[in-house]
């Protein structure tokens, strides 16, 4: 349905100031705006994190959990995996821009699998933390940690679903060098999810 904008001007080159065709396509603009709104959503959560941390600065993390979040352990591997997946996602975009469908499917499949592995590692990480007694209900540290990483994980899950869709569509041959707005849009979303994770990793583990 989104192809109407070009249709309305088709057939008369005398349009005084042409529109449509030019610039960014509707679905990609829509995705950029959606990502804007997601950025604002995470801004609210980050603001709450910093406010909570500032109010509890004396014991952050609380004594019992000190050292529980090791930046060099499992989570470092997960971080690297997600960053690599952002690269493979971009390789997929470049492939389809060239019209290389096999390259697109291969790179998208790798991205999809890396996303799933990241989710799996996050689940293992959660299991370990639960085992140590850190939960949503164990004070401000647990509340903010699980809220932030949980909502990020939910977004990764959404991104994996989107990757699954474009992977399926790519295998069915629905994308070409000219027609691949969905690929561009999903890649933007995937990069956004990646950037949020880098911020999360930095403030939760390093800061």
């Amino acid at each position: 349905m989104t192809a109407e904008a070009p249709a309305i001007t088709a057939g008369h080159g005398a349009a005084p100031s042409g529109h449509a065709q030019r610039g960014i396509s509707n679905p990609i603009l829509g995705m950029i705006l959606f990502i804007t709104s997601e950025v604002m959503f995470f801004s609210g959560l980050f603001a709450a994190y910093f406010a909570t941390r500032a109010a509890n600065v004396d014991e952050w993390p609380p004594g019992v959990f000190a050292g529980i979040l090791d930046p060099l352990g499992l989570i470092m591997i997960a971080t690297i995996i997600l960053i690599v997946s952002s690269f493979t996602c971009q390789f997929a975009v470049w492939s389809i821009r060239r019209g290389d469908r096999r390259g697109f499917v291969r790179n998208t499949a790798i991205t999809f699998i890396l996303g799933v592995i990241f989710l799996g590692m996050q689940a293992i990480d959660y299991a370990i933390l639960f085992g140590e007694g850190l939960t949503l209900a164990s004070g401000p540290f647990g509340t903010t940690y699980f809220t932030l990483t949980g909502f990020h994980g939910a977004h990764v899950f959404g991104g994996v679903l989107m990757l699954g869709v474009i992977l399926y569509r790519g295998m069915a041959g629905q994308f070409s060098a000219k027609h691949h707005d969905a690929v561009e849009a999903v890649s933007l979303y995937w990069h956004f999810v990646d950037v949020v994770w880098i911020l999360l990793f930095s403030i939760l583990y390093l800061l």
Partner: protein
Amino acid sequence: MATHALSPAVPAYRGGLYEWLTTTDHKKIGILYLVNSMLMFFIGGIFALLVRAELAYPRIQIFQNEHVYNESFSIHATVMIFLFIIPVLAGLGNYAVPLMIGAPDMAFPRINALSFWMLPLGAMLLLAGFLTEGGAAAAGWTSYPPLTERGPLNSDGPGQDLWIVSLVLIGTSSILGGINFLVTIFKMRAPGMTLFRMPIMVWTMLVTSVLVVMATPVITSALVMLFIDRNYGGTFFTPPAGQAVLYQNIFWFYSHPAVYVMVLPAMGVISEVLPVFSRKPLFGYKAFIFATAGIGALGFSVWAHHMFTTGAVFLPFFALMTFLIAVPTGVKMFNWIFTMFRGQLTFSTPLIFAVGFLTMFLIGGINGAFSAAVPVDFALHDTYWVVSHLHYVLFGGSVFGMFAGIYYWFPKMTGRMLNEGLGKVHFVLMFVGFNLTFFPMHMLGIKGMPRRIADYADPTWNDWNLAATIGGFMIAASMLPFIWNVFISLRNGKLAGDDPWEGNTLEWATSSPPPPYNFDRLPEIRSERPVFDARHGFVGHGGHGGRDEEEAPKALEEPKHDDMGPTRDMGPVEEMGPKS
């Protein structure tokens, strides 16, 4: 002239209910928005009447206890704000924006349908609170913790959780709608429709949509944190580790821009109505646009003026920014007044409601500026002054503006005129009732009557409260001529024709109601008043970005006063059908 010609590519109309339930046509969705919102207006209104009836006299008469009273005013406010004002204006925008920019539909028609259908679902969830143990949400529309934290003395039952879930749904609906508007406005404009030739209504929807996309997700974050606090043992807003004032900051970061979401589109409506019924172009078109953008930008820097008395915000900054908002708002006031000044005024119902907006919004703006002064605010905080102020802005402003829009576009939507006499009865009853309800609340506020109380003991408050209650029932009575008017006009109203008001903007260049995909052909767009230009046989007045003056004399040679004048052939109609 647009006709009902349908191309083979446009799917045939399915009849009746099925069509309405599955439609992706922005006009039908717009009407669905309006109908659903009016229904919510009546539900919210019933709660308002219950509240006013309780307050007519001291002591508890209507409700079993104060808790039920708390539920009533909370649900009244929530329904009116989130399920009436915001969606009804989004509905008007949904109907008008694609027509005004000469587009066949919104950019994402199916997402548009999704945005709408989330609203009835959200409404059902919200009202389902009354069926649960402990009743519906009762902590006011602001739902501050610790009132909303789970606890025997606060909000124990699931009503508050339903409130949260419902608001997340409605917020998502708003965000998707906002994205849709932005893409539509940026990408779907007809040839010649530059940004500075767009109707003001489109500009206000643009700024509104930016606010929606930037601000609404922030309240979603506050709501999910509140939900986590209530249900999973979180400590965001629970002392000692959490801070209740954090919620207020995040909440108002959304809810102050939301005030402009609730009023900017209404400003857009009256900026369409006033020029048409004054027979003049809008005075200061560009100034108006910059003022709108200015209000939108400043709107993000004033949220803490709702929190002056918390002692947790930097008072001078937020007071200053709040006063600054008066500047662009004042610019708009002059735009509107000088549009009417020396105009050829026709006092049709849309104009009367627009003038109602002007006067009432002026009062609401001025008593808002009072509260922006920190010392005054400390005295008036949480009194009926605030109730009065917000109703002068949101009812005196948005609701009057919304009715101006409904009377203005009803002929376009249905092909029939609303009855002028009944419209004027509606206006007079509503105007008098409105002032009788909300003006006394100024006095009550100054006398110190707090908001959100079911009972009061100061005898000097009695008379003003009774007056407000009588006014409230007058407002309710004013809805009867309106409903009757819609009912009889749909059946026997005078046929409207394409352009009953001699309008300026593109929606009047198509038939009433417009065919699916809106236009067969469009007039040349060389100014912000393309239909006016076409009617009077000249093209562009060189005003706003018109760089095609050299073509004007050619068009003047053959004036067509009774036709659309120069038109652009839109090409074969089937090209306008869905492609994918």
